[in-house]
């Protein structure tokens, strides 16, 4: 089953993700950057859904940078779903596969995008 790592600190959104994707993907939720990065390196997900504004020592951008440094995660799509403005250009530069604003989309759109990204990898 396709593994989806969701690094997001907002419980409500995580619940929404869970409701939307638990039947389709194997999900793992992490709520801060450090744990998220650790999970990414150890669990080796097929796709990472990444928020930027995260509690803890590492924020989403740090996590993204670290992921891109890991050879085994080099080709793993990282889908940045955030509400932090002005993030898009920066995250794309840092190696994100896709980026969208949470308020601009709904989960159906996110689901579509994930499917699309996964299809492109394989």
């Amino acid at each position: 089953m396709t593994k989806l790592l969701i690094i997001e600190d907002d419980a409500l959104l995580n619940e929404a993700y869970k409701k939307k994707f638990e039947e389709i993907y194997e999900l793992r939720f992490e709520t801060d950057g450090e744990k998220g990065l650790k999970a990414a390196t150890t669990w080796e997900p097929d796709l990472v859904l990444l928020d930027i504004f995260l509690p803890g020592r590492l924020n989403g951008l740090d996590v993204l940078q670290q992921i891109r440094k890991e050879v085994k995660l080099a080709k793993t799509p990282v889908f940045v779903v955030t509400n932090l403005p002005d993030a898009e250009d920066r995250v794309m530069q840092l190696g994100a596969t896709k980026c969208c604003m949470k308020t601009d989309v709904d989960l159906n759109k996110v689901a579509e995008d994930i499917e699309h990204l996964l299809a492109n990898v394989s």
Partner: protein
Amino acid sequence: MITEDNRNKFRRAFLGVVTSVLIVLVIFLAWRYVSITEEEQRNKAYEKEVSGVIDNIETRLAFMVETLYHVRGLLSLEEIDSQRWREYFLSAGIEDRYPDYFSFAQVDIVERSDLDKYIEAVKIEEKGNQEYQSFFVFPKTDNEQLYPIRLLHTFDSDIGLLYGYDVGSSASVSDAVAESMRTGGPSISSLTNLKLIIPSSDKTGYVIALPVYSSSSAFELPLEQRNRLLTKFIGAWVDGDKLFSDMVIAGDIDNTSLDFDVLDGEVVVKKGIDEVTERNYEKEIRLLNRKFRILFSGSEKMKLPFLQENLPLFTIIIGVIVMAMWYWTLISILTSRKRAEELANIATKDLKKFKMAVEGVSDHVIITDPEGVVIFANKAASRITGYSDKEILGQKPSLWGGQMPVSFYKKMWKVIKVDKKPFYGQLTNRRKSGDLYEAEVNLSPILNDKGDLIYFVGIERDITRAKSLDRMKTEFISLASHQLRTPLSAVKWFGRMLLAGDAGKLTTLQKEYLRKIITSNEREIQLVNSLLNISRIESGKIAIVPKQTNIEDLIKSVVSDVEISEGKKIRKIEVSVEEGIPLLNVDPDLIRHVYMNLLTNSIRYSGDGGLIKVTVGIKGSKLISEVKDEGIGIPAGEQGRIFERFFRAANAMKRETEGTGLGLYLVKTIVESSGGRIWFKSKEGKGTTFYFTLPLTGMKEKKGEVTLT
């Protein structure tokens, strides 16, 4: 307390008073001098008159004496009779000069015993002359020698009676005769009253006697032998009144007021003074060894020339004028001095204020010489750099600088020293503690009149804090918007899931309510986005990233977006773009916002029908865009406020609950910050047309930290 200022004031006041007193003194002295000089002049004039009078008297007397000598010369040569005598005096012209003044007589010396013989001889001698036929000698005396008047020249009728008069009978005359015999020269008698001789006469006068000798050698002989040669006397009678009359001649003074009395001893010979005035003058003169006192009296009526006469008055007037001018000068000097002091005080205060201000400002201010050596540094310079005043003065700003690339400083020095223009820049410096800080510097070369560099003034502001505040602000905007959006996105996601039936089938009413929730949430999202955009634009943090943009493509993309997103009822939007519009160097995201906003408004505020049209063309150096609708229009009374923040026209609010009132404000801000202009024409109920321009030269790139959402 005596301050230097007070001491100066006192000194000045003292000098003023002393000078005033000196001027008054000088004026007084000048007045005195002029007055005295004038008094002297009057006295001189007076004395001149007086001496003129005396000269006259002396001249008169001298003439008489001279005549006597003359006659003596004549008589010492020969005996003359009355005929010769008369002829002589007629030829001498005495009467021409002194008519009536003098009477002359020849007095013979006769022994009493020879008297009859003498009378007989006279009669014989004058046998042709009737007067002498009854000639006799009178009065009768017992004197051994008689001195009868033999010849007489006179116009005085009283004197004319004196032929044969024995002058020896008169004590005063015989004294004079005796005196003249002793000296051999003329001798004057004491005052003689003619009354004693001729009872009918009241004349007084003087007799002058001169002895006549038979030989001219008589004068070399001793008195005894000389008297043996004495043959006769000649005498003159002068009337006292006449002698001293008509003496005053016209001169510089008003002589009508000059009177004089002549006194012989205590006897008044001539009375001239009616009234004694304040100007009295006594003069003693000697006439033939006889003393006379002349008492002059005259008023001050002596006339001097007008200027001289009034010189003391003029002196006083000039003095008063000089005094007035002195005080005027003094006052104006004091006033101007006071004014100058006030100005100087103000200037000093201003300078102090200025210095205090410079000292007190929070910016680091230094002044350096043209080589960059610091000659002044304010307190902030020490506070910011951490170096003390003493450490800074005499050093160059490289003490705390030198953190930038060499090229930066080269450029800086070129601007201020070679171009002599102010330099502005941001740089990094290092405090004494070693900490780096960011500073904004403003260096100004100060030039003298000739354009030579004399100083540099450097103002440096520590912007480390401001920069970090700016960063914090930007972060705050980002975070606030992030935090606001997170719950909104949760509502959106769950709402959409619910609507999609993820949580089971909904009734129609449930769906309707859910749609309202979602719509309202969307509005909230839009509002947050707009607020974010506005705060970014206002904080100047927005980045402008111009790209070569095909406007037509951009508009078409916007139109299709709008048609979809606002597409409850799909509206056709006409687009008309002039051919040949070049690629425009603008930030497509920003311009997209403009078209998007204007078109969204057009759709929202149009009815079901009505045309919506976008027209783009070139006018001059500008691209002009026109977005026209036939919608509800903007009420005339509200047109002036349409670009204000949060403003929504009344008819718009009634029609559409959506809309934040921020769209047009944002549009205007974007257009204007791109160098363009926006305006509109609108009529309520007929529609609205918005126009905006963009320069064909495009937008300038601006580095910012954010873009629009």
